[in-house]
Every structure is written in C-alpha cells, then in structure tokens.
C-alpha cells in the first residue's frame, strides 16, 4: 500500500514540477509551486520526517507563496515567450540526469537498517537524547543541542535575509507603486468584503494559538521555533490583508519589528554565551541549571523562543517591505 502511495505521490511531484516550468503565466507557476510544496510535505511525512513536513508545508506552501505573489504584484504577471529553442540545454540536462541515475545505482538500499547512515552517529543521538536531555522529540534535541551551532547559523541566515530585504527596499513606496493595477494590500483592507473579513477575523486567534502550541510543544511533537514563527507571521499577515497594512503596523510598528529581529538572534547568542560564563563551552546548556538535564531543557526552550521571535520579525518585515513597495 505504502509502495503504491509512494509511486503515486512521486509521480505527481514530477508532473507538477514540469507544469511549473512549462507555464508561461507566472501566477499559475506560483500556485503550482505551492501545490508542489504540499506534495513534497506529504512525501516527507511518508518518509517519517514529521518536522520537515510541517516546515515544508508552512514555508513552501505558505510563506514562499505569499512572498512570490507579493513580488508578482509589483513586477510582472506573465513571462515573455521564449525567443529561441533551447534544445541544446535540454539535451545536456537529460544526459546529466541519466548520469546521476546511473551513479545512484550504487547507493545503499532504500530503508536498509544496515546502511551506513543508520550505523554511525544516528543511534547515538537516539540513545543520548533520552539520557542527557530527556525529551521525546529527537529532532528537536539534535537541532537545538547536539547541533545547536548549525541552528544558530540558520537563525543568522534568516536574520541576514531580513536585513538584506530591508536594505534593498527600505520602507518607501517604489516608483512602480502608482501605475500598479494589482494592489497587494488595499490601504483600507478588505473592509467591504463581508464574508472573507468575518471568517478571517474569526480564524486569526486560532492561528496564533496554534502557532504558540507549535512553539512550545516542539519538544514533544513535531514543531519548533521556525514553524511557529512562520505561523504567527501568517496570522499577522492575514490581519494585514483584512484590515489594511497600516492597522497591522499599528499593532506591531516597524521599530518593534527591528527589535524582534535583533532580539531573537541576540537571545540565542546570549544563551550560548552563558555556557562560556558558567565555565563550560559555547552553547552548552547543561550548566544553566544545577541539574544538567533540566539545564538542557531550559536552554532548548529559550533558544526555540529566540528562533521563533527572529523568524516572526523577519517574515513580517519582508512582507511589509514588499507591501510598501506596491502601496497606493
């Protein structure tokens, strides 16, 4: 049953990918790539990667679709028809695909318990999590503690993207805002569209609640700071679409957003520095409390909060920066 399901989903994935590349209408491409992400998320779920599936759904189908659509609203709706045929590139790509497929024949068998992947470091993580951190979700343990330095880097990648977009676009309306027929956010919001507005407002608190659940339940089930940040940002973006961007900025002004971006990243870093001050290594949370296991759990909780805060701030800033470019 799983086999049939797997084949079916993978084939759908391929068909969607071809359709995304083929379509000349950029809106269609963007909507299809949202679908692609959802299909990919289902595939990840079949492969036992619940956390990754949640993230891919929140990021691929949610955030990246919103970002692409807001960019389309400012730039162009259609792709220009290709001027020349690209048979050469196609042939090269097909040959490269065949070479890749040939080379993957040497890969270890799928899901084989004796594959090297399952032998060396992975079992250690599974054992050590129960012993040293004592939380059910091993992914969170590896992400936050065993490889917490990577995650610190990840937070700073998001941070860089945030300040990059702010640096590029600032907060001013761009020159194309005037003539632009597609308004991303009406200054007055959707005040005159009764049904979406009522239902949307009803949903916002629940999305926020779910975001907080994902944030603080990350140690027990799939979830964590990044997914939660994406969800909370989605709720506020929804508010901005319904009530107008200015109302959203009244709730969380730009200065606060900058503070969120910097504060979350600093929070993570400072927790790491505490490891040094308390006589151990950077990012060692064990020393945060007299009981090392409690210390680890405390550290994870705080750094996940830091991740969530930064991600919320960055995603909202990017949204506002894009929206301000197309305003009026």
């Amino acid at each position, binding site marked *: 049953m799983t086999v049939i399901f797997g084949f079916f989903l993978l084939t759908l994935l391929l068909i969607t990918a071809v359709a995304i590349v083929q379509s000349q209408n950029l809106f269609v491409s963007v909507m299809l790539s949202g679908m692609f992400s959802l299909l990919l998320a289902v595939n990840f779920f079949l492969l036992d990667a619940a956390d990754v599936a949640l993230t891919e759904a929140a990021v691929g189908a949610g955030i990246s679709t919103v970002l692409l659509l807001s960019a389309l609203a400012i730039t162009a709706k259609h792709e220009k028809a290709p001027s020349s045929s690209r048979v050469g590139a196609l042939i090269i790509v097909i040959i490269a695909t065949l070479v890749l497929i040939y080379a993957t024949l040497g890969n270890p068998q799928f899901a084989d318990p004796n594959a090297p992947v399952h032998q060396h470091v992975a079992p250690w993580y599974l054992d050590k999590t129960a012993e040293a951190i004592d939380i059910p979700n091993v992914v969170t343990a590896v992400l936050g503690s065993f490889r917490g330095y990577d995650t610190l880097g990840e937070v700073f990648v998001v941070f860089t993207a945030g300040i990059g977009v702010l640096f590029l676009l600032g907060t001013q309306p761009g020159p194309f805002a005037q003539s632009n027929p597609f308004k991303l956010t009406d200054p007055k919001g959707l005040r*005159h*569209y009764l*049904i*979406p507005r009522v*239902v*949307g407002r*009803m*949903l916002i608190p*629940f999305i926020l609640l779910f975001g907080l659940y994902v944030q603080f339940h990350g140690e027990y089930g799939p979830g964590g700071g990044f997914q939660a940040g994406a969800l909370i940002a989605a709720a506020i973006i929804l508010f901005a679409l319904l009530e107008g961007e200015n109302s959203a900025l009244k709730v969380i002004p730009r200065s606060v957003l900058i503070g969120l971006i910097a504060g979350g990243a600093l929070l993570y870093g400072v927790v790491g520095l505490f490891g040094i001050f308390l006589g151990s290594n950077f990012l060692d949370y064990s020393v945060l409390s007299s009981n090392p296991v409690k210390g680890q759990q405390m550290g994870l909780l705080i750094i996940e909060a830091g991740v969530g805060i930064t991600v919320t701030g960055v995603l909202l800033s990017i949204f506002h920066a894009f929206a301000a470019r197309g305003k009026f």
Partner: protein
Amino acid sequence: MELFLDIASWILMSLGGVFVFIGGLGALRMPDLYTRMHAAGITDSIAPILIIPGLMLQAGLTLASVKLLAILVFLLLTGPTASNALASAALLAGNRSEQVKSTAVPESEE
C-alpha cells in the same frame, strides 16, 4: 458492533471519495470559471463532511477524533470563504461567465 462501525466508516469514506472524483472531473470539464468553482466546491464541502466522520469512526473516542473534528470545522469555514473570495476577485477582474452575460454586474462592492 466493531464490524458495523467498520462498514459504516468505509461507506462514508468511499462516498466521500466519489464526491472528490466528481468534483475533480467537474473542475476539468466545466466550461467557465464559475461553473468550475461550483464543481470544485463539492470537494471542499461535501467530501470532508463524509470522509472525516468516516475517519473518526475508525479512530474511536480518542484525541485524534477531536483533532479531526477541529479540521472539519476549519475546512467548512475556510473552503466556502475561499470560493467566495475567488469568485468576487474574478468578477472584479472582469471575468464574466458566458451564460450570465445579461445579468447585471455590481459596480463594485465598495
């Protein structure tokens, strides 16, 4: 009792599947945007009403059932809203149906 629940849930889920199929067929074969949305609406509304209770019968009285119920409520709220938003957006963008050319189009909802 066990058997009865199983049969009931399978009937519900199969019926739901049939509606999903009909909805998909309609979305492909109908002539214009509004009729297609009408067909797609079937997969949004009647299909989850059938499929999710079917799944709940399988899950029994557990936390999973509560979650399924929450999903059902969520789908029933958002599906029609999305259809409404889509239709009014299409209307405002000037997409008129072939059949309803004569119908007066509201100036704007503002």
